[in-house]
């Protein structure tokens, strides 16, 4: 049966501005929100929007991500005639290539799309935290009779130069595109979420591929080309929480948003975020522990003080340790007397006894301790430092 819409999820990003967190891990696989990884958000959005086929394009450090996706069962994406597929670059008789850009990545997988012969394709990225109903966006796309619909949200004009900016007419059709403009003329930023009518996607990707000068990027090449060809391009205005968690600061901020009453409600039963759950017992709050304004996940043992922080699964906080405004990723151990403030601690890192990491001053820079890094007893790590397994900065 012909599918209405399938999703193609670009998950090849390196996320170089997350430094040691993405040294051995693709950015979409970075842990988020206590139980999740970033990719759980677009994946859960797909499932909650009624999409049952998702191609996940991987390139950078794909192993952990592939293992995590597995057969797609946690997202209910282990389906007959569909489901979740991890799509790394591969060799074909015309040669082989890495994914050269976002457009090229999809181009190289046109055969995957053709196999399901969908009417529409939604292109997603695995870098953002948000909840969105792609089915509602598709409705808009159909209603507008568009070749492509681009999801966009209003950003402060002062920040607009970081984004792809959309200028639209009164009817919601795109008239102009500006990729990271110095002097933005609109506050409508592209979210990197596109719904294409499948035939148009094929047409423009094939043309883009034939152009040797192209960078093979949706924002830089494909969409401007479509605009030039006077295709109908609609804008879909999104209101709600959306955050690029591509930097240490933004990843930290997004977690603080979770703790504050923000628009990002993970507890909404009507739009659950699914994840591959670790198999761990409930978390134990020991005698003398103090936890407030925080999120704590199964498998943790907390004996110390935890304030305005997020503890992922299986974290140990020994007695006398103090954690403030920090994010402690799965399996990390915070030893007795250690003080951690405004810090992201990577998976399985160990913070030694009485060590001091970061600073709790309101304007202190965010500190990053990488996965499996070991901070020695009594060591002091300056705010804003990046402390990796091999102590890089």
């Amino acid at each position: 049966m012909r599918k209405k819409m399938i999703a193609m999820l670009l998950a090849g990003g390196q996320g170089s501005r997350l430094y040691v967190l993405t040294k051995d891990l693709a950015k979409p696989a970075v842990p988020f929100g206590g139980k999740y990884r970033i990719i759980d958000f677009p994946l859960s959005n797909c499932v909650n929007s009624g999409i049952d086929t998702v191609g996940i394009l991987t390139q950078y450090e794909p192993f952990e991500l592939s293992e995590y996706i597995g057969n797609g069962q946690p997202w209910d994406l282990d389906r007959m005639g569909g489901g979740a597929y991890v799509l790394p670059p591969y060799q074909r008789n015309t040669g082989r290539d890495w994914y050269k850009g976002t457009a090229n990545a999809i181009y190289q997988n046109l055969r995957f799309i053709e196999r399901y012969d969908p009417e529409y394709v939604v292109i997603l990225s695995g870098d953002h935290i948000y909840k969105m109903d792609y089915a509602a966006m598709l409705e808009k796309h159909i209603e507008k009779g568009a070749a492509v619909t681009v999801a966009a949200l209003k950003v402060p004009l002062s920040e607009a130069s970081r984004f792809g900016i959309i200028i639209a007419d009164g009817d919601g059709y795109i008239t102009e595109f500006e990729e990271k403009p110095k002097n933005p003329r609109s506050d409508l930023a592209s979210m990197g979420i596109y719904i294409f009518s499948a035939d148009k996607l094929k047409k423009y990707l094939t043309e883009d591929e034939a152009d040797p000068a192209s960078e093979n990027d949706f924002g830089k090449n494909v969409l401007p080309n479509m605009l030039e060809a006077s295709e109908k391009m609609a804008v879909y205005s999104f209101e709600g929480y959306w955050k690029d968690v591509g930097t240490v600061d933004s990843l930290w901020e997004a977690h603080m948003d979770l703790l504050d009453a923000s628009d990002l409600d993970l507890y909404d039963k009507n739009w659950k975020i699914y994840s591959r759950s670790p198999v761990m017992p409930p978390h134990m709050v020991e005698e003398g522990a103090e936890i407030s304004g925080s999120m704590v996940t199964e498998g943790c043992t907390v004996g110390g003080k935890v304030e305005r922080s997020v503890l992922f699964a299986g974290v140990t906080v020994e007695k006398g340790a103090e954690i403030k405004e920090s994010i402690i990723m799965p399996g990390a151990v915070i030893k007795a007397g250690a003080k951690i403030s405004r810090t992201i601690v990577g998976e399985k890192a160990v913070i030694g006894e009485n060590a001091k990491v970061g600073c709790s001053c309101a304007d202190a820079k965010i500190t990053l301790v990488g996965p499996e890094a070991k901070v020695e007893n009594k060591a002091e790590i300056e705010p804003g430092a990046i402390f990796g397994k091999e102590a890089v900065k």
Partner: protein
Amino acid sequence: MRDKDVLGIIVCNMHDDLIPQLTASRTLGSIPFGGRYRMIDFALSNMTNSGIEDVGLVPSKNYQSLMNHVGNGQEWDMSRKNGGLSILPPYAGERGVYRGRMEALYGIREYIKASDAANVVLSDSDVVANIDLRPVIREHEESGADITLVYKYSEVFKEKKQCAALFFDECGKLLDLYLNPELDGKQNIYLDIAIIKKPVLDELIAECASKDEHSFVHSVLMAKKGVLNIRGYRFDGWCNKLTGLRNYLDANLALLDADVRKSLFPAERPIYTRVRDEVSAKYGENAKVSRTLVTDGCHIDGEVENSVLFRGATIEKGASVKGCVLMHNAFVGEGATLEWVITDKNVVIPAGTHLAGSEKYPLYIPKDTVL
């Protein structure tokens, strides 16, 4: 390696009468335990962690919640093309609800016969323990026993319920078995887990059926102790055999002890359960929690001490919860106080309510009660 040589059978409705409150609408196997588990999870996880791939569950009544919980067995890695988990409800028109394990087994004799396993692990679902069955099976095979009974050397239950004390001779063969003995001190208490040679079991099932006998303890262990080679295997880890509501409270609160958790939840042999996709527990600004087990999906802004909170419990500001076991989705309103209370699923305690049982006699609030 997976062990196709052993068939697991779990009889889910044995001992239902021990905790009539908790089994009013469910089998003993689906009684919630320890924040996120059901009783059956321990038996199932022990089997899967021991490499046993084919497991038959034998419920007899009230098994909707059980079926809902175990599904196709996928969480225990038992969703297999050949074998895996099988739920074997009784055929209508036979005897209806089985009276004992042997009758339960008679009802599934075709399933047992179809297996080419050499041994059967026969387990109930009333024991909370993390038992590696591989050494038990090894010892069973090496000793040449027909039946090997897993026991724990521990105190005789005060309630004198479902307590079978085993006595062995010098060579380790079963000499005698006392049910609910008038004995004090430590004895070898049977944990309702037995390894049985399959040909022996096939014969015993047929024999018991022809004599209209249904009890494994009476018609097999007691009656055949001189005829069959029945031996024991001593388990030394932490375990609890459910004997009543008070014991249920004690066993849950025992998990607050670090050594108990270490024995029950070793990283290499996890206890699996149905995944519910809950969010991490959230602590408010006013939360004060001490010596408590907290599960994902909880919202705590009040005071909790010496308790076990299941998934989705909400403790509002100013509320106080002490010595309690609150099952899924409990709601404790502002300023309410609870002491020695067990709430079943979906119980609502409005603001300002005061409820107290005692440590020796906990107050139980049935499922879906809105006070």
